[in-house]
């Protein structure tokens, strides 16, 4: 086993991996940029090294600087987390050249699966059903011609895509020019590759994915599915396991297809094979995510398998600690992603200072987070600041727990997706399991503006009393006892007044 690992990431996922290291008795090191000196992962790690200015390409994406840091610190392996260098084949190759173990799949599998068109060809050859569309990258003119052949609506996708970047749903030809421009520009900045391809748009699709673990000997298991249909901008917001659509037979079929695709690509480590499922429960291969995923905790909650630790064991050349027969799914888990975004304003980013935070706890509640009271959420990186994961005996109990935990969860100073989750956990369509990937654009947009009048009155009344106390109380004796103020809150408020972020 490794003695020291470098975690080349930040925020909640860095903390998650650092925790696994600590449990395994492995010394941990991490990296940080200018803006992240005060970040949680820096404090949590045993060692932390500066790798450059705030923009990601000068720090967290700086391959040579990270390799050099790992070597200087004497790390035998690097865990890239998700995002940043997680699916960067060049980085995996450089690790190998320098004799550092990349905790993830082999570089050949990253290259193959990183190209969505190669992945589609590989999956089809392995016998997986794929969505109708093109198997090669296209020029602007070809896109227009092919889209007519396939028939609108179509999905325009980045060949190097992932995380919804460089992806556009195009309803008709008049939208195509603008969609191509935006998709190419986004793909260029996210993946440094602006090539695009086309897929037929599946109506009312559900997003169901299969978690797999494969060791270097090729022994593999599937850990069941996650349903990730609640998405905004083609990025997941809520995930759960199991999916309400799943049957034991369908799960076995999908799990075996997933392992077949992985073997065809020479894959090892943890990975996720994504599928779209139509209204008739027909599933189509979508892509392989060659990394640890944001939503891995829902699978950990229902299977009891620590996916990060398995990844580390596999990377160290160890055997899988479980066989397929050991995998038993128990109960139901739901993850609510906490983004620094305004759900009532098209999920626009809301970076800034967290001036107050109270975390939920109690039975069946897990919080993975990268922030704390007083933390600054920078605008340079991904908006995810944490995840709430709940477990219940069944879906009903999991939803009730999520609702209860969300009512305890307080984050102040920036806007977050917490009020969005509160609404979804009360929505009859979500509760009945009758929803698809269009949920946010159709169902949520309608409830967006709704306020609970009862709470509005209390909010209005209390703010007026507060204002009255601020205006009047200093001049007379305060009728209300005020306790000492937390220095973090004062700091946060000062910062906020200075930056004007609110």
């Amino acid at each position, binding site marked *: 086993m490794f003695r020291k690992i470098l975690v080349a990431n930040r925020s909640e996922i860095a903390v998650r991996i650092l925790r696994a290291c600590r449990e395994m008795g492995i010394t941990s090191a991490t990296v940080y940029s200018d803006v992240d000196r005060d970040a949680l992962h820096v404090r949590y790690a045993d060692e932390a090294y500066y790798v450059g200015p705030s923009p990601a390409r000068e720090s967290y994406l700086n391959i040579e600087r990270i390799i050099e840091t790992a070597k200087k610190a004497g790390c035998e392996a690097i865990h890239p987390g998700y995002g940043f260098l997680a699916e960067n084949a060049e980085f995996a190759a450089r690790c190998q050249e320098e004799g550092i173990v990349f905790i993830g799949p082999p570089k050949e599998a990253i290259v193959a699966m990183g190209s969505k068109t190669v992945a589609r060809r590989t999956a089809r050859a392995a016998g997986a059903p794929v969505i109708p569309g093109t198997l090669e990258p296209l020029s602007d003119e070809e896109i227009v011609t092919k889209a007519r052949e396939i028939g609108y609506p179509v999905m325009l996708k980045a060949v190097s895509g992932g995380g919804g970047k460089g992806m556009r749903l195009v309803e008709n030809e008049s939208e195509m020019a603008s969609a191509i421009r935006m998709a190419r520009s986004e793909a260029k900045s996210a993946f440094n590759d602006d090539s695009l391809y086309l897929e037929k748009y599946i109506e009312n699709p559900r997003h169901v994915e299969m978690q797999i673990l494969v060791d270097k000997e090729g022994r593999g298991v599937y850990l069941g599915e996650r349903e990730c249909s609640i998405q905004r901008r083609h990025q997941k917001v809520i995930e759960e396991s199991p999916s309400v659509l799943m049957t034991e037979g369908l799960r076995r079929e999908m799990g075996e297809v997933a392992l077949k695709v992985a073997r065809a690509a020479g894959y090892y480590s943890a990975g996720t094979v994504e599928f779209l499922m139509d209204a008739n429960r027909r599933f189509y291969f979508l892509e392989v995510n060659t990394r640890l995923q944001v939503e891995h905790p829902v699978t950990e909650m229902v299977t009891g398998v620590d996916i990060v630790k398995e990844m580390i064991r596999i990377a160290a050349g160890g055997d899988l600690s479980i066989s397929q027969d050991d995998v038993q799914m128990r109960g139901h888990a739901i993850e609510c992603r906490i983004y620094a975004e305004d759900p009532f304003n098209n999920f626009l980013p809301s970076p800034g200072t967290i001036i107050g935070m109270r975390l939920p706890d109690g039975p069946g509640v897990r919080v993975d987070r990268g922030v704390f009271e007083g933390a600054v959420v920078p605008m340079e990186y991904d908006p995810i600041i944490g995840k709430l994961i709940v477990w219940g005996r069944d879906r009903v109990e999991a939803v009730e727990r999520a609702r209860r935990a969300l009512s305890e969860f307080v984050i102040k100073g920036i806007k977050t997706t917490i009020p969005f989750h509160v609404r979804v956990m009360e929505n009859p369509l979500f509760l009945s399991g009758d929803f698809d990937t269009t949920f946010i654009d159709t169902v949520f947009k309608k409830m967006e503006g709704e306020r609970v009048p009862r709470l509005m009155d209390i909010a209005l009344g209390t703010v007026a009393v507060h*204002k009255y106390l601020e205006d009047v109380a200093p001049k007379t004796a305060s009728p209300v006892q005020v306790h000492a103020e937390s220095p973090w809150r004062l700091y946060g*408020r000062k910062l906020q007044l200075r*930056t004007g972020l609110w």
Partner: protein
Amino acid sequence: MTYIATIEGISEEHRVEVIPVGDDKFRVIINGNQELLLDVRRHGCCVYSVLKDGQSYELDVDGGGDGEYSVLVGGEHFHINIMDEMKKKLLSILGEAAGVATGEVTTAMPGMVVRVLVQEGEKVEKDQPLVILEAMKMENEFKAPCDGVVKSVKVKEGETVEANAVLVVIEPAG
């Protein structure tokens, strides 16, 4: 004391009267017709425990200056601007005299200017893309609100802007 409050996302104003009745209790009258009797305890700077007819509420009230408050209750965020009635009246008179600028394209979020697609003096059509801004890895296209001419471009590519910054000013046509 009487206040005028506006809640973000709700167009109408609310008139809120606060009358202290002793022992941390307040009579609050909303819009002249709704009366609440609130038992209010403040904990630390910003946490309130409020009892109303035996119902218990926990609220966070955080001030950002200029009568702007963020109120959090039961997972709901309310962004409330509250001012005493007299001040509000004064400000509204001053505001009318100053007039309101039109054709300003502003950003609700901070971010980095990825691309500026127009120049000063250029004619633009409604919905024509003007500026692309990136924050938290997401690109946002800002479009012309109306037909017109670009009066000024306030930002440069690569520049970082704060929330509510003016990006481009359009002189509306006609």
